């Protein structure tokens, strides 16, 4: 069984927001909300500064606090690809998952249920990449099976240094950023 994840090359990402627009179009994300977004991070001390631009979204964590806190099972780990998904008609809108997520990846859909990135599972089931990956003009985003040693994502993780977001939260995120 696959375990989907994403690798994003921060040296190639230019923050064009094509991934954001593609996601909103593909998934009919309500206006004023976003399932993915761009973060620009500057660190260091002048004049020795370094900047990282990256596309962020739900990390589909291996140890997902949003799933553990859900009282109805609406937030769950989907067997296909072991991704974290939300069943809208089981969600009561208690917002515990929003509070539990250290990445701020979730929002309340105007219809009342919790919403977030699905890794475009409907596209993946058809053999396509998620919308954000497919439109990236610099090809900085890569999607694949982390349990397959021969997958492109594993090849990249083996060949470059990488980091995840807030590893100290213990959530074991599955989006990896190449340094």
């Amino acid at each position, binding site marked *: 069984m696959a375990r989907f994840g994403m690798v994003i090359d921060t040296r190639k990402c230019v923050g064009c927001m094509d991934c954001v627009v593609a996601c909103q179009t593909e998934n009919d994300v309500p206006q004023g909300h976003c399932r993915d977004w761009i973060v620009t991070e500057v660190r260091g001390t002048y004049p020795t500064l370094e900047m990282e631009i990256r596309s962020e979204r739900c990390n589909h964590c291996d140890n997902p606090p949003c799933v553990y*806190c859900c009282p109805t099972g609406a937030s769950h780990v989907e067997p296909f690809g072991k991704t974290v998904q939300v069943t809208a008609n089981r969600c*009561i809108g208690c*917002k*515990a998952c929003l509070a539990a997520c250290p990445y701020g990846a979730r929002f*309340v859909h105007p219809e009342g249920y919790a919403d977030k990135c699905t890794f475009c599972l409907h596209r993946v089931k058809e053999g396509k990449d998620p919308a954000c990956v497919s439109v990236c003009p610099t090809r900085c985003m890569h999607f694949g099976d982390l349990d397959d040693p021969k997958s492109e994502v594993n090849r990249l993780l083996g060949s470059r240094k990488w980091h995840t977001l807030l590893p100290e939260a213990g959530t074991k995120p599955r989006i990896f950023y190449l340094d």
Partner: protein
Amino acid sequence: MLEITTTRHNPFVDPQLAVWGWEIPVYLFFGGMIAGMMILAGIAMLRVARGEDPESFFSVQTPLLGFMLMNVGMAALFLDLAHKLYVWAVYLTFEALSPMSWGSWVLLVAYGILMASALVRIGDSWPWLARTFPIVGRLSAAVETPSRLRLLAFANIGFGIGLGIYTGILLSAMVARPLWNSAILGPLFLFSGLSAAAAMVHLAIRIFPGRPAPQGMVGGAFAAMWQPLGPRAPRAGTENALVRADVGFLGVELVLLALLLLGLVTAGASQIAAAQILISGAYAPAFWGAIVFAGIVLPIALQLLELGHRIPHTVVPALLVLAGGFALRWVLVNAGQASQILQSASR
């Protein structure tokens, strides 16, 4: 230096988490207070079962009052839900890892226990009900045997402790919020609930002296919740016992608050930053003023003076404790949402 710019702009999440407004603090406050009332009622029921205090006010009236207040708390919880029509989904499953799922089922059982407990002598305290529905009298008689009272008492105490701790664990299970992520919140909310419960029962005794139960429907209903049973006032020692218990609960609460802060300021950077929100940040005036001073220290001082016969018994300490109990939930819910795991400035 670490400077982060984001294009994310989701309501309730940005610029900081703000998913829970007034509803959740109200729910947590009433939940904690009802938990405390169940424990107090359970202890009093054991005394009734032993024949020590057959008219014990808070064994027979408190469950009905608790039952009514639980409806207020549950209404607040319902108002908070964003997907209200799907609320039934909570009771289609049991999620063992979700504190909220545990809490939902505990609340359901607590409802039943409070209802069964309220049946004890409800016919005496709400005559209209017994007249209109004779079955109530038969049910009351069935419940009011020493062995069943003892069973109810242990159920009240057990589920009261569970409910009180749950209101804290609900928040403390959130790894993403350093201020909440402490197991001390469970006992802290339990003891705060106990002190609020003692204050509420004390308030009821002070406001409504004992007198014959009103015969009407509405008057009888209110009297059943608030006034001591029968024409006699509660036993002389009842009020002092409640005040003494309240001082004890408040003392433990103060120690637990200190331990919460100690745990935070001796932990990592995220926890220290979270503690600063309470100690010197935006919520410091409410924390030190409304919770620590007005909600705990001042009521302890006033109640010790009352017990020492330096000042007469008044409702002031009880009102302060209730306001402080709500302030504790309000401040912790809001300050907790403002706390987050800090990203390291170096990699």
